[in-house]
């Protein structure tokens, strides 16, 4: 799920960045530091959308660095247990398949793939129904349900399932 939230961060700046462009410098450093990172609490920071305010700087003893408390608005992405997600399949093998939704890596074990879909090995390994009408292979887009999540400092892992109504392939690149 995406959320638009306000977060706060203390930014440390070297004195060389002070001057007329101070605000720009703080903002660009903030973007560099924060965008694309993960935190266990909020998930993946997709983009900073605005600065609420920049507080008064505090000089650190002995270093000359100054710490500014910055409040900013950002879009974060965090998967939840029970959430339905659309993802792109990255790898298919006999254990199941891996898929990605942005920074999230999802594993769907073959236990959680419908029983009528069978693994086919070969140059392009895939799971296919016996009548061949539905096929999951690399680059397929699937709709899946998250049943477990783990958010690390840099990565988000999920366990997913497609063994439920309205889940599975939503776009098959081979058929296009």
């Amino acid at each position: 799920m995406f959320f638009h939230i306000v977060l706060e961060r203390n930014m440390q700046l070297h004195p060389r960045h002070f001057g007329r462009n101070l605000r720009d410098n703080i903002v660009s450093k903030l973007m560099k530091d924060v965008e694309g990172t993960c935190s266990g609490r909020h998930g993946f920071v997709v983009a900073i959308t605005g600065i609420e305010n920049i507080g008064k700087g505090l000089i650190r003893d002995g270093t000359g660095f100054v710490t500014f408390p910055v409040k900013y608005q950002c879009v974060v992405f965090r998967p939840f247990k029970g959430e339905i997600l659309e993802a792109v399949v990255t790898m298919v093998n006999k254990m199941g398949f891996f898929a990605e939704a942005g920074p999230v890596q999802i594993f769907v074990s073959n236990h959680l793939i419908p029983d009528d879909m069978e693994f086919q090995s070969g140059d392009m390994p895939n799971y296919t129904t016996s009548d061949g009408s539905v096929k999951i292979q690399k680059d397929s887009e699937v709709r899946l349900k998250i049943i477990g999540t783990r958010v690390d400092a840099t990565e988000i892992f999920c366990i997913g399932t497609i063994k439920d109504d309205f889940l599975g392939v939503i776009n098959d690149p081979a058929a296009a």
Partner: protein
Amino acid sequence: MSLVTDSPVDSSSSDDFASFLDAALESNSSGSSPEGEAEEEEEEEAEEADDDKVEDNRVKRSKVEILEEVVEEACGSTLQGSLEQKLEESAKKDACTHPGSFGDMCILCGQRLEVESGVTFGYIHKGLRLHNDEIVRLRSTDMKNLLRHKKLYLVLDLDHTLLNSTQLVHLTSEEEYLKTQAAPFQDVSEGSLFMLEAMHMMTKLRPFVRSFLREAHNLFELYIYTMGDRPYALAMAKLLDPRREYFGDRIISRDDGTVKHQKGLDVVLGQESAVLILDDTENAWTKHKDNLILMERYHFFRSSCHQFGFNCRSFSELKSDESEAEGALATVLQVLKQVHSMFFDEPGNDPIDRDVRQVLKTLRKEVLNGCKIVFSRVFPTKFQADNHPLWKIADQLGASCSTELDPSVTHVVSTDAGTEKSRWAVKEKKFLVNPKWIEATNYMWQKKPEENFSVDQVKNQ
């Protein structure tokens, strides 16, 4: 309960988001276990580690309310329904055997698993582990699938089996010319000599290897298994399989094995009765010798010869190479085809009950079938003759070995033409060959012409 109704969650408000996240985090990490102190600590740690701070006045709520709120938010279904669903799920969790894990979560129920266990399949995906029961299950379903396609498994070693690599600094002056001939790593579609500047290496593919892989992949599901590290394994796979047709994600390096300095089939998702291995190092496969087809080592570079104690000039220095048509890979491909056809085409029981190890043994036994061998000055005196590797090899190849001369003897294997047994062989018009004849026959899986392995007279010892 009252709290939930009078504080509706609005996802655009960050205050509520914070409490919502708290709730989600707690219910996610706790699973079906009762709330404990450990979770509280974990959460505080996460908070400390995190540079960002959510705006204050966060409200801690009781477990029940949290649960309802999260489920309601996430699923959007009715309160009653979601609670029931939740209960059902937790019941399912209790029964789960946790067959494996991904990112420390059970691949079946999604629950966080505290204890790491099972076999790591890092070559498929970082953080994927499977339990023995699950491996057994996967192997047996895969076996049926593979047999339907008339395929077996083939595990291939890299160094000295499919190719030969050297550090650039180890190139001798006589080998410098190779640098102008080697193709860069960016263009791997053809050629057989490659410069891998980033790894400070040069690699020569064994003659016939491209044809070998093209044909073998129709009969086998191919794996790479190397004692090299993962980046090396991937680079070599790119050279051998530039279009990624043969190996897929089945590339195993020493970083992925479970026992140090040993290769094992435990990380190979194939039943041992259907796996063949090509490797030049027998000792790497102590538990799977019966699956192994031993390869004659391919040395192209000087440093490689030197490393194995050969002082002759290398192919690179002689500007020559192993034969394409009669080299080791062409030979072994014929053997593999034979094993494959014996496994699938022989009438009789269901292929699933057959064992490729038995087929290999039978095939090997035919090589010297009908030969009777006597050794002369091959084993040290006092050595238990039937313990000697050559004796054992001859035996595996189907020859009968003896210590006594009699008319039924066909071959005398000797290091010296002057011994009594050697002279007997000449007089009785039996084959007199040196021990290399057995080694060559063993590698080539066919009786080599005896006249190429004559025995010299050792003078005045």
